[in-house]
């Protein structure tokens, strides 16, 4: 304790620096500068393409056009480059890409991180970028040595001339390499020659995420910046009728109170001042038509709709005739609620708006939407808007909003106050803020023929469309939003007579993709109902599925592996029961076996989950394993706890007390097994989520004879009375 540092509020705001010397940290610099300082020095770096920059200091900076939100893209994408670049992995650094066409998603045509597509969509492009750079470095070395290129090779950040054993590091070659012509179509390595891809690589971002230096949007700060909290309507679709800022403005530190489209912003010199100001703010709301909205009434409305025929999403055979021929008919209704993403880092967005430019620091999954929205709101051209993508404290879809809600709001606040300002959402704002996974209601009917053969299957789905009104509205065809029926319309079981239909009511609650999107409900319904049918047919749930999957080798591959590793059919500890589910999503096939017990109070304990995944060619087993664990936890949170409900138009939940998520004491032991595959890589961020709810529900049925048809699982329904 020898240093005394004075931090006066005024000085802090004026300079953003600590007084007392020696402690002026990077935190007061705009992120862009600190990124540069940490990366490569300015001395003529070699930038063979938009994704790679090699400095004279040998550092290799890989510019990543995907957002790192925990899924590991800041490691897996560099691996793709490194495989071909033959660089020294310890010299690899990562930088987030600006918004520019060359960083667009190869399939979506905009800059976006979603759909578990980061590795699959960049599988070719990032490897090619690495290969082209390598060839230019080799050419540069050959020219330096005046030797034939063919006698040179690249290895661990050096080009080596085989004949003379001369070697030059990439850093020594940058100047010359920059003058080389970028080669066209360099052949990529054969998988048998892979040195990096397929290896369990440690995450590049772990050190920073263990010492507090990782920068999230909420951490970015610079001189003169203010903080704002927004009072939003208590009912979706509501508006400000009037407000009285008198008391709010007397809260110490409050600078201004302004009305914006989404509500009233209280702007202050610190979070806490903005918070106190918002508490003191008086707003009269025009609550709008949803003021009587109620979850129970919505269930009844959906139940009515489900009795009527909907838009056809899939049809084969002759369902009605088959049903009349069935020897056994089984009906069931499944329901899941609205869910909030509840990312660990609450939403936030920092905007510095000037007459001729707008700079934004935020953790976003959807840079192009956000940039264009900021341009619209600020009246600038898109090219005058710069987005600095920070690390994301979780995304799960919430930070890829085609409506750019949290960005538009922050730009409006910045416009009103004419100072750099960061809008922070409190946890309550986040839980009550909408853009939920839709509530779904599914009516099922099936017919079993002789010998328990499944001959007829009807699945009627009711729920809001996510894609309507977004850039993906073209994926809504003949009244069917593909994301509402994914995993249901294309479910793999071979049944001769099938009808899947959909009702898409307009409700007014904002909805959005939530990790695994439609699969988050269809897997629960299809995999639980198929289990019901297995029991109705008197068959083992695994064998029953196997019999219907003969032409689906990858489903079977995952299923068989999970069954083998879990010891399916083998005796268990007393009181424990197994349930199984398999589901394909985002190109990957995942099977899970859950081991569960239920006590007399109806409390469910998930002891163990064995998970098998076929995600095509394996890029980083470490990531695959982590993402399966992560998906299982996310799905379990929803299965055991999650529900957003409404009363009098108001969201009834507010924080982690009434919107609980899984905690460590509920964490099952998870084992992950990967099916070897030569197929192109497919998703891992989302596919771990869908199978867990049905696997657990099916285990609960094995344990209690009670079928879980509504999530979250309710203890009262399982209690021994």
């Amino acid at each position, binding site marked *: 304790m020898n240093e005394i540092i004075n931090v006066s509020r005024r000085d802090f705001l004026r300079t953003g620096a600590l007084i007392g010397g020696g402690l002026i940290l990077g935190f*007061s610099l705009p992120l862009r500068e600190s990124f540069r300082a940490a990366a490569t020095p300015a001395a003529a770096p070699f930038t063979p393409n938009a994704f790679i920059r090699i400095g004279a200091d040998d550092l290799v900076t890989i510019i990543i056009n995907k957002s790192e939100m*925990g899924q590991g893209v800041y490691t897996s994408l560099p691996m793709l480059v490194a495989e071909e670049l033959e660089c020294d992995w310890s010299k690899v650094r990562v930088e987030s890409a600006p918004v520019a066409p060359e960083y667009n998603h190869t399939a979506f045509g905009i800059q976006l991180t979603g759909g578990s597509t980061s590795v699959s969509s960049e599988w070719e492009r990032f490897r090619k970028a690495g290969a082209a750079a390598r060839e230019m470095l080799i050419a540069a070395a050959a020219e330096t040595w005046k030797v034939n290129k063919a006698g040179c090779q690249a290895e661990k950040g050096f080009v080596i001339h085989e004949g003379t054993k001369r070697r030059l590091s990439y850093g020594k070659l940058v100047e010359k390499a920059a003058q080389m012509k970028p080669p066209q179509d360099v052949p990529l390595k054969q998988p048998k020659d892979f040195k990096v891809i397929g290896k369990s690589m440690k995450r590049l971002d772990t050190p920073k995420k263990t010492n507090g230096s990782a920068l999230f949007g909420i951490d970015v700060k610079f001189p003169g910046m203010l903080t704002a909290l927004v009072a939003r309507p208590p009912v979706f679709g509501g508006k400000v009728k009037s407000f009285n800022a008198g008391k709010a403005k007397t809260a110490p530190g409050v600078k201004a109170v302004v009305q914006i489209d989404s509500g009233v912003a209280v702007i202050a010199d610190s979070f806490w001042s903005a918070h106190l100001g918002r508490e003191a703010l008086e707003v009269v709301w025009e609550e709008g038509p949803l003021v009587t909205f109620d979850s129970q009434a919505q269930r009844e409305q959906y139940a009515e709709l489900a009795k009527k025929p909907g838009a056809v999403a899939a049809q084969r055979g002759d369902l009605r005739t088959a049903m009349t021929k069935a020897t056994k008919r089984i009906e069931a209704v499944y329901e899941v609620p609205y869910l909030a993403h509840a990312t*660990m880092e609450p939403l936030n967005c920092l905007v510095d708006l000037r007459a001729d430019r707008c700079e934004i620091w935020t953790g976003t999954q959807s840079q192009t939407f956000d940039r264009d929205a900021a341009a619209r709101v600020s009246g600038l051209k898109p090219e005058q808007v710069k987005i600095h993508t920070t690390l994301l*404290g979780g995304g799960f879809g919430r930070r890829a909003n085609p409506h750019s809600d949290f960005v538009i709001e922050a730009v409006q606040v910045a416009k009103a106050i004419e100072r750099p300002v960061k809008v922070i959402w409190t946890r309550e704002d986040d839980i009550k803020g909408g853009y939920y996974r839709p509530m779904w209601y599914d009516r099922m009917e099936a017919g079993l023929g002789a010998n328990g053969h499944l001959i007829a299957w009807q699945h009627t789905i009711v729920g809001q469309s996510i894609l309507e009104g977004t850039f993906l509205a073209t994926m809504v065809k003949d009244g069917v939003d593909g994301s509402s029926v994914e995993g249901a319309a294309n479910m793999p079981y071979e049944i001769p007579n099938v009808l899947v239909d959909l009702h898409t009511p307009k409700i007014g609650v904002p909805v959005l993709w939530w990790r695994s999107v439609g699969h988050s409900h269809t897997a629960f319904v299809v995999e639980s109902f198929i289990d019901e049918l297995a029991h109705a047919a008197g068959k083992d749930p695994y064998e029953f599925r196997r019999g219907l999957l003969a032409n689906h080798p990858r489903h079977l591959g995952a299923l068989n592996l999970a069954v083998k590793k879990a010891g399916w059919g083998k005796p268990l500890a007393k009181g424990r029961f197994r349930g199984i589910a398999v589901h394909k999503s985002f190109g990957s096939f995942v099977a899970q076996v859950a081991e569960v017990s239920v006590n007399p109070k109806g409390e469910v304990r998930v002891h163990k989950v064995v998970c098998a995944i076929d995600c095509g060619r394996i890029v980083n087993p470490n990531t695959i394993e982590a993402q399966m664990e992560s998906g299982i936890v996310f799905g379990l949170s929803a299965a055991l706890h999650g529900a957003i409900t409404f009363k009098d138009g108001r969201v009834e939940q507010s924080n982690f007390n009434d919107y609980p998520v899984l905690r460590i004491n509920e964490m099952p032991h998870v084992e992950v097994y990967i099916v070897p595959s030569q197929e192109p890589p497919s998703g891992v961020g989302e596919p771990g989520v869908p199978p867990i709810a049905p696997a657990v529900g099916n285990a609960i049925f094995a344990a209690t004879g009670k079928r879980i048809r509504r999530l979250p699982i309710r203890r009262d329904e399982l209690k021994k009375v």
Partner: protein
Amino acid sequence: MISLHVNGKRYEVDVDPDVPLLWVIREQLGLTGTKYGCDMALCGSCIVHIDGKAERSCQISVKEAQGKKITTIEGIPENHPVKKAWISEDVPQCGYCQSGQIMAAAALLKKKPQPNDADIDDFMFGIICRCGTYQRIRRAIHRAAKMMNKGGKR
């Protein structure tokens, strides 16, 4: 002026004495490793050490923290066994909750050098990881306990 002892340094801070310590650490001291997650003692993202014990900085006013010895994630040495174990097990995903997890784990091991899984669950119960890194957290704590037992730095 409030006087704070954080990570071995003394700070004189001109703030309202009722402001939660969390926000002073983050905004006035610029130590942003300590995170905001709920403000209601529900998530543990904001955990720091106060006089050696894990405490939620969102629940303590800066006035109450005066004169106490405060350590944040930035004050944990790089060679601390918990940090090393976290890196070996590659625990973090998004990373947002991890400062709280690490601070809690370090406090747990001080209290209980050889925790079993039940001890870990009991102590770490309050710290949410939305990314679901719990299994690796358990493994990392066991690893850190082993390191410390072999005479590593506590």
